[in-house]
């Protein structure tokens, strides 16, 4: 029996989405998530790095490169092929859910 896909947490979904086009560092991800979600999701730094640690352990993101900026450590992350696949699966799951909900709403009897 195929393993049932688990719903992704919202921060996870947006972090993976923010990394689709290019590798990004911490603040770059926070900015991109905020822009893509039209301000709906504002990641706290602690939440972001906890999610990145977990995604790294699950093989969905990997380190792209390190930089030193004004003496500060900066690390860039990118999606792995597993990360792309996981995001595609989640997108498909959400699309199915949206389709189902839209169909149900279209058949709703009109109220007086």
């Amino acid at each position, binding site marked *: 029996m195929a393993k049932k896909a688990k719903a992704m947490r919202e921060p996870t979904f947006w972090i993976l989405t923010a990394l689709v086009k290019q590798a990004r*560092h*911490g*603040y770059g991800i*926070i900015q991109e998530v905020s822009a893509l979600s039209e301000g709906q999701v504002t990641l*706290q*730094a*602690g*939440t*972001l*790095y*906890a999610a990145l*640690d*977990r995604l*790294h*352990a*699950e093989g969905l993101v*990997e*380190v*792209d*490169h*390190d930089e030193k*900026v004004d003496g*500060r*450590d*900066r*690390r*860039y992350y990118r999606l792995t092929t597993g990360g792309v696949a996981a995001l595609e699966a989640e997108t498909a799951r959400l699309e199915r859910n949206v389709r189902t909900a839209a169909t149900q709403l279209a058949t709703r009897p009109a109220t007086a």
Partner: protein
Amino acid sequence: MSRGYRLLVRAYPPGRRRGELLDTLAEAGRARPTVREAVNLLRHGLRARLGRPASRGVVVLATMIALVTGFVGAAVTTRIAWEFAPGYPSGARLEAIEESLFPGLDPSSERDGDGLFHDVSERSFGEVFLRGHDEDFAFATVWIGPDGGFVKGDYPAWTAAAQQRLVSEGWQVSDAEVTGATWIATGEIDDSGRRFTATRDGLALTVQTETDVVDTPAGSFYATAELDRLTPGWITAAGVLGMLVGGLIGWLITGWASRRTQESSGPVRSLTREPAVLALVLLLPQALLGLPAMVFQQVSGGPPVQPFWSLSLTYGFGCGFLGFVLFAVALITAAVAGRPARVEVSA
């Protein structure tokens, strides 16, 4: 970057993550942490200390170990704190209490332990370390009684008069309750004595009269009073602080062992995890019984009979001892066979 942020990122394990966080916060233009940010960084930093980011099991394990070490921390700090508590009254102060209770009856008092505690078997420190305390281990107490133990007269009337004397000397006195054997058929108490408590200046008296004591002369009753110390609030506060510090130490040590063994071979991970889990089976019940007892002792308002950790040094001593040996096995394995978590270098 503010000192607040630099302190907060220390919740994370040593490594470049601290620098990454400071970079992110600096880029975001953050000058001072808000409460929400501080909680977020502390929460995720302490989680990061455990390593194994995709594992929920390590969080459960660390929480249970923190409960055990928190219990140990509370026990150690309250044990030390009691050494600084005001002692029992002696000399004229004690004689005044004796005379208030049993005027004209040549009263005397006897303490049942030299130190803080009473242990029938009077075990030395070495014996306690190897065998624990006797089952009757409790706080030392002072017994006060009239000469010969018996008082002539009517015990309800004497009890009421004793309550009045204590009230006039500033004691907070409870109502007297009827004591005696319970009739099984009806559930009624066969009135054969009275008991009440009185408190003043951190001391508690429990006064008891009985008529069913062996060899009680006709027209007399047996009377005795137990003098105990109430737990000062600052000892409980020290216990809570000890619990938090102990819990944090347990969490950090679990994190250290977890990070050191997260990339180790199967046998090394087993030799760290299995002894720790077995140790929890032995120790967690003691912590789960002891910590509520600490709270109860404070809220009950009465004097503590036994310290809240007494189970661990009496009936639970063997389990506790073995538990700490197993924890030591897990930690020694992590120290000897584990290795610091690998720092990933960029491609």
